[in-house]
């Protein structure tokens, strides 16, 4: 034990010395030909102090010096989780649902706006989860389908005045076609080759959107997209329909919530279906899956298509909410973000992805006041989460699900 | 046989992750002998060798080499101390040439003259390798690959040589010649050899002493001759 701490301290000391050497050339050599140390040392001391606290915290936690304080807390948490387990899952689902319904009523505009982002990204995460988590194909250009969905609605609405509800299935449809177009030539590639080609397709989509001035208005984007409309029957003398534009965020929130709930349910159902098992067999061993009679070509294409549909639908909502689209929203880094949400939360696990989305959307929002340091902290947080939780925040529990199923099967046979 | 063992395991527990393949192994190897470890699939033979070589570190117990405890020494520091393994399945570097494979055997050594001399020596032991010295390792046949793996291990100048299933997947005639060479190496350079084999008959004929390993434990230790004549062993491992 003691040796272990010695090692931690040694590594820490080496790391801090390394950092000092790293900082000085960037901060201490000035173009006017002077060398200073003051600023380097200040920055370094801040980092040193901050990380020292973290290391001390880590060591006290590990060595259980403060076990007298922490143990009751841990026990308390354990009891809480016992209580939570005592209530059936359905109760929790109802509570969660009530919370989601009440949320816009008790929160301000900003919080609802963030919540809508979270829900849209949940939908994206679910779609990507099919491709990466279930079928095991690394996709770095996923955001392109989101873009296809958003531009479908934007263009059809602005040019032809088609309504949102007509465009929504079309957006899904076009995204699906795009998914097949990307999927078809890439199906015989594996692993990282696939990743780079999907990245290429994503970039091509963005560049085309950026340069096809006559259609997409290039980098300036498309303005003046109509929000979602609903027809409400009115009864003045005779029955007629009145168009109601959903401009209020809290109404839009409910629509996006419905989309997110549908996508969560759809992915859960898909995962436990025959198709889901086929995908997972491809992920585990493609050759073996093929030998077992899984038509890998068809299922891989299907994974792309289904994943793309979710992104397309989310994209249409995105366009309706922003009422403006531009290629800037569909860059490679956005694809990476969605991938991060899926992996950070725990690949293949639905609560994990939701948590991952919340962490990655909420974290930058929380740090918004430190605007400059926001992304720095964000990057560091990603590394740290991965270092301590390499399987994600809530890893998928496929085995447990199976065990439950088996148990259920047993009771079923007992009854009969 | 001298009284001091060159390699000694004392109650070693080890394994990969949560699966414990070794549940308390104790064995001794004396300088200059050929020691056979026999056992069925999954008995822990390969894990024993990997634990000695530091690829897997024991959870419990001690390993002594020349009286020095080597439990926690990282794997790459052991070959310079004279401990070398030819792992199961040869594991030559397939996209390096035969010559490069041999040079890497002597990676830690800096005496160019000595390396050249040893190179000549292994080429004289395995003339076929000299013919193929410019060929990539992956293009060799199974028997040639086994020879290359042995030759590469000899380039580390081992005092204790651990061999894991040298007969695996080879034609019987090649197996015989490989074992002849193993016996020669032992005789000529006084190298201690620990031989892990499923082919118990061949292993015990070559070795002086033997251990029988079953599900992570040593169940029997004796002279090779007595083991060969042991009725239980004949029944369990020699198919009689």
């Amino acid at each position, binding site marked *: 034990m003691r040796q272990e701490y010695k090692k931690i301290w040694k590594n820490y000391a080496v790391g801090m010395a390394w950092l000092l050497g790293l900082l000085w*050339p960037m901060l201490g050599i000035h173009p006017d030909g002077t060398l200073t140390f003051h600023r380097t040392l200040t920055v370094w001391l801040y980092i040193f102090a901050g990380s020292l606290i973290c290391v001390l915290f880590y060591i006290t936690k590990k060595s259980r010096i403060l076990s007298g304080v922490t143990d009751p807390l841990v026990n308390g948490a354990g009891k809480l989780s016992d209580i939570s387990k005592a209530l059936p899952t359905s109760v929790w689902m109802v509570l969660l649902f009530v919370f989601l319904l009440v949320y816009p009523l008790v929160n301000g505009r900003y919080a609802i706006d963030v919540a809508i982002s979270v829900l849209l990204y949940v939908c994206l995460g679910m779609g990507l989860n099919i491709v990466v988590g279930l079928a095991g194909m690394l996709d770095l250009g996923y955001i392109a389908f989101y873009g296809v969905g958003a531009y479908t609605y934007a263009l059809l609405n602005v040019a032809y005045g088609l309504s949102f509800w007509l465009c929504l299935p079309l957006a899904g449809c076009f995204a699906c076609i795009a998914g097949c177009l990307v999927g078809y030539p890439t199906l015989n590639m594996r692993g990282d080759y696939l990743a780079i080609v999907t990245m290429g397709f994503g*970039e091509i989509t963005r560049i085309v959107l950026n340069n096809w001035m006559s259609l997409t208005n290039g980098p300036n984007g498309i303005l003046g997209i109509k929000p979602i409309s609903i027809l409400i029957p009115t009864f003045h003398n005779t029955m007629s329909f009145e168009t109601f534009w959903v401009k209020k965020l809290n109404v839009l929130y409910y629509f996006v919530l419905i989309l997110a709930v549908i996508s969560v349910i759809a992915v859960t159902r898909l995962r436990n279906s025959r198709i889901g098992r086929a995908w997972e067999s491809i992920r585990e061993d493609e050759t073996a899956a093929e030998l077992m009679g899984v038509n890998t070509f068809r299922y891989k294409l299907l994974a792309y298509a289904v994943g793309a549909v979710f992104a397309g639908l989310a994209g249409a909502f995105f366009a309706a909410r922003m009422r403006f689209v531009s290629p800037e929203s569909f860059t490679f880094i956005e694809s990476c973000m969605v991938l991060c949400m899926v992996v950070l939360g725990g690949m293949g696990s639905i609560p994990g992805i939701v948590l991952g989305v919340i962490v990655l959307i909420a974290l930058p929002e929380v740090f918004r006041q430190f605007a400059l340091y926001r992304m720095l902290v964000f990057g560091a*947080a*990603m590394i740290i989460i991965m270092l301590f939780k390499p399987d994600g925040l809530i890893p998928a529990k496929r085995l447990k699900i199976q065990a439950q199923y088996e148990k259920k099967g047993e009771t079923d046979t007992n009854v009969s | 046989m001298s009284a001091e063992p060159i390699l000694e395991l004392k109650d070693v527990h080890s394994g990969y992750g949560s699966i414990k393949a070794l549940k308390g192994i104790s064995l001794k190897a004396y300088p200059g002998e050929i020691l056979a470890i026999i056992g069925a699939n999954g008995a822990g033979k390969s894990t024993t060798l990997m634990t000695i070589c530091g690829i897997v570190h024991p959870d419990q117990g001690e390993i002594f080499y020349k009286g020095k405890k080597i439990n926690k020494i990282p794997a*790459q520091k052991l070959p310079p101390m004279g401990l070398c393994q030819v792992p199961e399945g040869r594991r030559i570097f397939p996209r390096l040439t035969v010559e490069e494979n041999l040079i890497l055997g002597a990676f830690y050594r800096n005496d160019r003259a000595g390396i050249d001399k040893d190179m000549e020596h292994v080429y004289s032991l395995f003339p076929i390798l000299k013919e193929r010295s410019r060929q990539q390792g992956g293009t060799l046949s199974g028997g040639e690959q086994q020879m290359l793996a042995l030759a590469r291990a000899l380039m580390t100048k081992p005092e204790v040589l651990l061999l894991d299933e040298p007969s695996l997947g080879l034609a019987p005639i090649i197996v015989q010649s490989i074992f002849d060479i193993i016996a020669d190496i032992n005789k000529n350079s006084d190298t201690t050899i620990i031989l892990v084999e499923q082919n118990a008959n061949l292993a015990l004929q070559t070795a002086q002493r033997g251990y029988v390993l079953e599900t992570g434990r040593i169940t029997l230790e004796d002279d090779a001759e007595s083991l060969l004549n042991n009725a239980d062993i004949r029944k369990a491992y020699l198919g009689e």
Partner: protein
Amino acid sequence: MDYFIQQLVNGLTLGGLYALIALGYTMVYGVIFLINFAHGEFFTAGGYIGVIALSYCIAHGYTQTHPFLCLAGAFSLAMIYSAYLAVGVEKIAYLPLRGSRLAVLLSALGMSIFLQNGMMLTQGVMDKAYPGELFEGGFSFGMVTISYLQIMIITMTVLLLFGLNRLVYKTKIGMAMRATAQDKTMSALVAIGSNNIISLTFAIGAGLAAAAGVMVGLYYGSVHYDMGFNLGMKAFCAAVLGGIGNITGAMLGGLIIGLVEVFGAGYISGQYKDVFAFIILIGVLYYRPTGIMGENIDETRV
């Protein structure tokens, strides 16, 4: 014809730079199967150190007296700095996660974001201008102009590539690098410390990228904190095009991507120049799913 030759020279210059960056990707991928997203940032860091060192020299007037010494100093400082950065990054963010492919990929992405913003904070969001007066003029053959800078870049690139090739294919260390890429356990059994070799691989890759960073800075006249992203992405395409993990492939891929980009921009459309690189990539991978010189690596699934 003149136009063609001019484009060819420009394409070769750019291709060489891509090749230098692509090598880092491919070498790292070769030993630990990681797409090192932070590699573009090693390149940017090199560019910054280069401009810092050169500005320092100019302020003291050394460029007047010893121009070549200053340049050599800037190059070597940048390369050493990036190598130093890369080794630390590997130890902190990648080493503890070895064996979990997606986790380390995410860690690399996080590192890229972190370093990019770190550089923005220390160097500012504005472009940093390179002193341009070091390389003025060039040769003219009719309509074709080859600047001294282009000659320097091409010569330097060729030298570095040649040196790397010697190192990897002719020395014992190079052999150990290739052995580590093929089988880490077996390397340990012949006394090769794979962690040291992996650190060395990172250092060499980052050093080459840093050299490219200084040259890009000189070529385009400035460096910017997020330039590593775009160039890095294309260099990565070059690595994949050549067959990732293959050093010769990365050099070839870099040249192809550079030439395609320059010719595409020159003869077809400047706006879509990035598209051509990707289309070539997709086209080649469609017919050769493992790149031009790549071997079939089946274990590289997610």
